């Protein structure tokens, strides 16, 4: 089925349940779906597990969701930044759980979820504290760690342009985690700057094919 086009960000995030795992695109603020996150705050779902590269910047977007106390656990690669005061305070107060994942493993674990891979062996983190408790295996003389997929109930991503089927193109480095998150969640919601008629996106340039996209909203 082609993507549903929503009239509002509120409609686009309707139905997110308490306890959901939510994949949130963006690298810092580039590619962060701020309007969708704001709508999710209004929608009210709580006890969430958020998967995102960072753990919020400043006071808007993901940081605002954290500040409302809606997030139980963050799975991310780089929570500590100069403007991550919201996360820092919650973490130091013991009010949020952190699973720290090397950035490439974060991406690849979602890729595996979206590609039907049960688990994979990866050399990142061998011999470090992040290998604790993980199965290891020697393959061709090199040591690898067994890594499991990360699947979302919902993905909230930010793309540049959609056509009426839901094909997406991104803009510059705001692409980052959007394409892989779009493959890895049950319900994928994209906020875009612009919608064009079907046929107006160059098929050679489509980055996320419509099959992955469930809801689109212009924001």
């Amino acid at each position, binding site marked *: 089925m082609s993507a549903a086009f929503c009239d509002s960000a509120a409609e686009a995030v309707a139905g997110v349940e308490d306890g959901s795992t939510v994949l949130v695109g963006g*690298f*810092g*603020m*580039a*590619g962060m779906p701020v309007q969708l996150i704001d709508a999710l705050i209004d929608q009210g779902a709580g006890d969430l597990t958020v998967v995102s*590269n960072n753990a919020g*910047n400043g006071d808007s977007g993901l940081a605002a969701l954290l500040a409302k106390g809606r997030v139980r656990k963050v799975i991310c*690669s*780089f*929570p*500590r*930044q100069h403007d*991550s005061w919201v*996360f*820092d305070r919650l*973490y*130091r107060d013991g009010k949020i759980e*952190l699973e*720290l*994942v*090397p*950035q*490439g*493993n*974060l*991406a*690849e674990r*979602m*890729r595996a979820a979206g590609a039907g891979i049960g688990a994979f062996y*990866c*050399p*990142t*983190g*061998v*011999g*470090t*504290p*992040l290998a604790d408790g993980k199965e290891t295996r020697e393959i061709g003389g090199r040591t690898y760690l067994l890594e499991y997929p990360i699947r979302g109930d919902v993905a909230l991503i930010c793309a540049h342009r959609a056509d009426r089927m839901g094909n997406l193109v*991104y*803009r*510059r*480095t*705001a*692409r*980052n*985690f*959007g*394409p*892989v998150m779009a493959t890895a969640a049950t319900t994928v919601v994209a906020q875009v700057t612009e919608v064009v008629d079907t046929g107006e996106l160059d098929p050679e340039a489509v*980055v996320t094919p419509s099959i992955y996209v469930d809801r689109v909203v212009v924001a």
Partner: protein
Amino acid sequence: MSGGTALTKDEMAAMVARDIPPGSYVNLGIGQPTLVADHLTAGSGVVLHTENGMLNMGPAATGGPDDPVDRDLTNAGKQPVTELPGSSYFSSADSFAMMRGGHLDVCVLGAFQVSAGGDLANWHTGEPDAIPAVGGAMDLAIGAKRVFVMMTLFAKDGTPKLVPSCTYPLTGVGRVDRVYTDVAVFQVGPSGATVLDTFGVSYDELAERLDVPLARPS
């Protein structure tokens, strides 16, 4: 090129830039390694990779009338940057696949500690109230064909950062091959540390201040 005084950060960056082979695909870590970009000459053909999904990244955006800041175009430190002709964009999954897959020639990283055997510690001090953040450091450490470290040789309290074995949590094991510091350059790896160059210190002074055996270049 041994000199009589310790190097500034810019001089260290220039030295690293000179050692990057022309035409290399290179990732510069956040912090001090970013300075290396200022010393790569246009004719070097070096292509910069940024982990958030871009090749042939250009210089920092100035925000001037011909060079407006674009919030959709940043480096790994989330600072606004620019495109060069021949740039390409790709997803985070592709960006780290090219890293892990051994396609990057060199990465330059900062460090808290490096061991004589080439172990790297640069992501976590391990202190109880410290918030750990790893980003792409572990992926870079195992992925790039060559790993250069750029750091001061001594911490602010005077303790050496080139050590027999790292006391901070590790980022990667046995992957560093060059360590560029303000007072010396070292080759590190399975055969230990070799002093390649010194600036403002003698070999004997280094040997006295460091706890690792130091070979001289043969």
